[in-house]
């Protein structure tokens, strides 16, 4: 037997912290950070008699996300209490949604290995986050700033088979959340968390294997690595005749392995029941319709439009639409330069590389979209050559100056005057008489050499097309 005889079944539970100013059930600040327990008033602390009041914006963000995930939005959804004791859970229960969640039965399309693939969304429900426990010496310290921050839990169908699919699906969900501006999708800070359910079965088997839940995964790379490790672990277990335990395992990124956190027998009976402090959440059609019409163009649709409207290759279209700001940047350059292909090339090869090296987001790009468009226009109008443009771009990135300013100040404008170029060509041909003879005797490969010499003589400023034409004419002699 080998790994190839098995297949994995993977489903993800993504927790997205919603970017509301206040918590889901109280007016306490929901911002990340702050001094320990700074954002805690009686409601967040679960003090006697305090009551939850639902944050309307959290509902809006959740419904928006549900719509973007192609979910049905329930007219009536219900908040339930999930009861368990833990020191960072102030009320002894978490308010969540159980059998009547806000969003159900959707799907997400994502792009991998040249094709569009689909993952079903079982549900997306609203809930409150718990606080944070910090174990220090013999003590456990509790910080409740995070307690009550709104979360949307997005539960996928077990539709993925490979670690790559799981990671790409997660990236796509993050992309959508960021397009909607409802979650910043920061896995490291925990504003987006990915729990992965993994099981394996023999190829061709219809029944699911025993599933294991993986937690503590704080990057997309680790989504891939943790799942990959877990698949191999499970197959190794099964091949040696062991049974898979239903359990929750933690991923340890430093050792790249997963370790048991708790077994199923230790799982809680959460005693879910509808929270009597909150009325059922009723969403009216008009509100929903308005929300629907306010949705921005989503990443997949935008990538597909880039392919048809601008003839951008599929792969490039997905890269360009990774972030909304990046796609906006591209469209602005494409429109202003009237050259989408060049816009795409410059962003994909030069801009993203330099931004990445400088660890900058595109919002902070030193090169403005209008300036990049200007640079493309200078090339297209032959005022500078492509080669010169690379230097101009580097200067733009360094100084944030406009391309014309740089070209002017460095005297870099292209020589298009044909008499000037003819003069340069004549000089080069005169200085390389032997090579001219060789060329005329049939060594046509030497053409490139002459072009190089002329460009060098012009300090790169000669228009390469004119150089070509004039050289060809003169060499024919």
């Amino acid at each position, binding site marked *: 037997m080998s790994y190839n005889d098995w297949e994995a079944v993977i489903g993800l539970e993504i927790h997205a912290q919603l970017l509301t100013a206040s918590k889901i059930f109280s007016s306490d600040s929901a911002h990340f950070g702050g001094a320990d327990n700074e954002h805690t008033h*009686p409601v967040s*602390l*679960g*003090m*006697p*008699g*305090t*009551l*939850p*009041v*639902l944050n309307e914006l959290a509902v809006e963000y959740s419904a928006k996300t549900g719509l973007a995930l192609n979910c049905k939005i329930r007219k009536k959804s219900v908040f339930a*209490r999930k*009861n368990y*004791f*833990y*020191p960072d859970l*102030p*009320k*002894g*229960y978490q308010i969540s949604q159980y059998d009547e969640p806000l969003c159900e039965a959707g799907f997400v399309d994502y792009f991998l290995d040249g094709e569009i693939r689909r993952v079903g969304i079982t549900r997306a429900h609203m809930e409150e986050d718990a606080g944070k426990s910090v174990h220090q010496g013999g003590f456990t310290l*509790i910080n409740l700033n995070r307690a009550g921050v709104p979360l949307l839990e997005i539960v996928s169908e077990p539709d993925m088979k490979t670690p790559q699919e799981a990671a790409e699906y997660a990236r796509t969900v993050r992309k959508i959340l960021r397009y909607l501006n409802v979650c910043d999708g920061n896995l490291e800070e925990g504003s987006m968390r990915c729990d992965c359910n993994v099981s394996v079965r023999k190829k061709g088997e219809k029944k699911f294997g025993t599933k294991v839940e993986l937690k503590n995964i704080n990057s997309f790379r680790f989504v891939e690595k943790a799942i990959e490790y877990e698949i191999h672990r499970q197959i190794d277990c099964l091949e040696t005749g062991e049974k898979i335990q239903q359990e929750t395992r933690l991923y340890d990124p430093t050792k790249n392995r997963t370790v048991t956190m708790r077994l199923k027998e230790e799982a809680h*009976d959460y*005693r*879910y*029941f509808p929270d*009597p*402090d*909150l*009325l059922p959440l009723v969403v009216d059609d008009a509100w929903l319709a308005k929300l629907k019409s306010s949705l921005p163009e989503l990443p997949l649709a935008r990538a597909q439009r880039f392919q048809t409207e601008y003839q951008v290759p599929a792969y490039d279209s997905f890269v360009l639409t990774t972030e909304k700001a990046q796609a906006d940047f591209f469209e602005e350059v494409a429109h202003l330069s009237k050259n989408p292909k060049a816009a795409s090339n410059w962003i994909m090869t030069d801009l993203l590389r330099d931004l990445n090296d400088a660890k900058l987001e595109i919002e902070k790009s030193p090169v403005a979209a209008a300036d990049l468009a200007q640079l493309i226009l200078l090339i297209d109008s032959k005022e500078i050559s492509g080669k010169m443009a690379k230097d101009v771009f580097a200067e733009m990135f360094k100084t944030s100056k406009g391309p014309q300013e740089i070209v002017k100040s460095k005297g870099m404008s292209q020589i298009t005057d044909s008499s000037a170029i003819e003069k340069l060509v004549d000089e080069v041909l005169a200085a390389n008489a032997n090579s001219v003879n060789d060329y005329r005797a049939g060594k046509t490969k030497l053409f490139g050499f002459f072009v190089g010499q002329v460009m060098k003589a012009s300090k790169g400023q000669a228009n390469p097309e004119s150089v070509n034409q004039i050289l060809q004419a003169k060499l024919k002699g």
Partner: protein
Amino acid sequence: MEILTMSLKNLRDRIHRRELSAAEATTQFLTQIEKWNPRLNAYITVNERALDQARAIDRKLATGEDVGPLAGVPMAIKDMLCTKDLRTTAGSKILADFVPPYSATVVERLENSGAITLGKTNQDEFAMGSSSETSYFGVSRNPWDLDRVPGGSSGGSAAAVAGGLACASIGTDTGGSIRQPASFCGVVGIKPTYGRVSRYGIVAYASSLDQAGPMTRTVEDSALVLEAIAGRDPRDSTTAAQPVPTWSQNINKDLKGLKVGLPKEYFLDLLTPETRSAVDKAIAQVRAAGAETVEVSLPLTDIAVSIYYLVATSEASSNLARYDGVRYGHRADFSTEPARDLAEFYCRTRGEGFGSEVKRRIILGTYALSSGYYDAYYKKACQVRRLLRAQFLEVFSKCQVILGPVCIAPAFKIGERISDPLAMYLNDIFTTSANLVGIPGMSVPGGFSAQGLPIGVQLLSAHFQEQHLFNVGAVIEEAMAIKELPNVLQ
């Protein structure tokens, strides 16, 4: 002595006319508390700032400033309601030293209305009980017979008003906890429609049933207090947007055209003859005032108590989870014997902090919500609750008010039932339905037993129809207004 038995309205008007200062009135009540609270144990905590509050009201009155509709009225607050900077215990060891940094909306509204907070009254622990005997702070006594219970859970609030230790008080009612002690102590008590009064800042027992309400010497006084505390509160999503009428100004004792329903299930052989005759007398009075009585039927009455104990304990098991010793309240002493693990931390803290009735209900509720039992218990109870509601709505299509007993018998002796929880639970047979259905209910004094114990009559009306209760209640109390303090206290 006159001040101690004066109606809230009279007292308020005299203070407003400056015939009597709020400080003077407050002092009289504080003196009565000093004298009688050691025997009655109606208060757990007396507010040391009460007199300062009263003087502040007097100063406002002197300068002609706007004072609220309850200005200068010395009131007692059940210890379920959080009072900023004033200890709030819910009758439990686990909150014995808890001083809230906020006040319940009801308390805020009373203070904005000018009421004086005399102190916090005794109660069954977390309002779980019908006798006030489960309080960590000892039982309260009935001012009409010190060997008897004042009822519960709002026993201290009822005893305080009956004994002249407060002009009026606030109780909470989850299954009869205002009406039953009102009946036992001979005061008027009203449980408003669910959603009338904000629950914000009131220690939760069973969230879908809990309502706070007034306990007063007269029906009109109850209307005045309810007007001050009722109404939508943005901090409690379950409060209703319904406008709050000025019930006190619309009390109409002419009951012509009113239909009063008498559920046959409420006139059981179980009733003591004296209870029966008090109710019969009330029936005669409402007829004399022009109302027509009709027999109605509420066949689910006998199982309402079972439904109540499933719903209430289920919610309570969750509501009381927050008392874990982590952030506030009692924490077991781990200095000599540290907890081995988290479970032991919780077990020792909660084991010490809660009394046995509270533990019993937490265990019952946890069981009813557990997977495998949820459908048979909690879910089934919710279904029957809906049927019960439908039954009441049906009855209210035939009459506007239901009249019947509050309890089977007058106040029982301290210790008589505490060891028999089922007998204690049966006490609630006539009162729990109002909470399960969400309708308002009132207990109004209807007579005395041969032993001199008060007997209350219960009135129920449809959702938000409290005016009917005030009208009919005013008719019944006319013949029965208790003008004196109980003999024991004179």
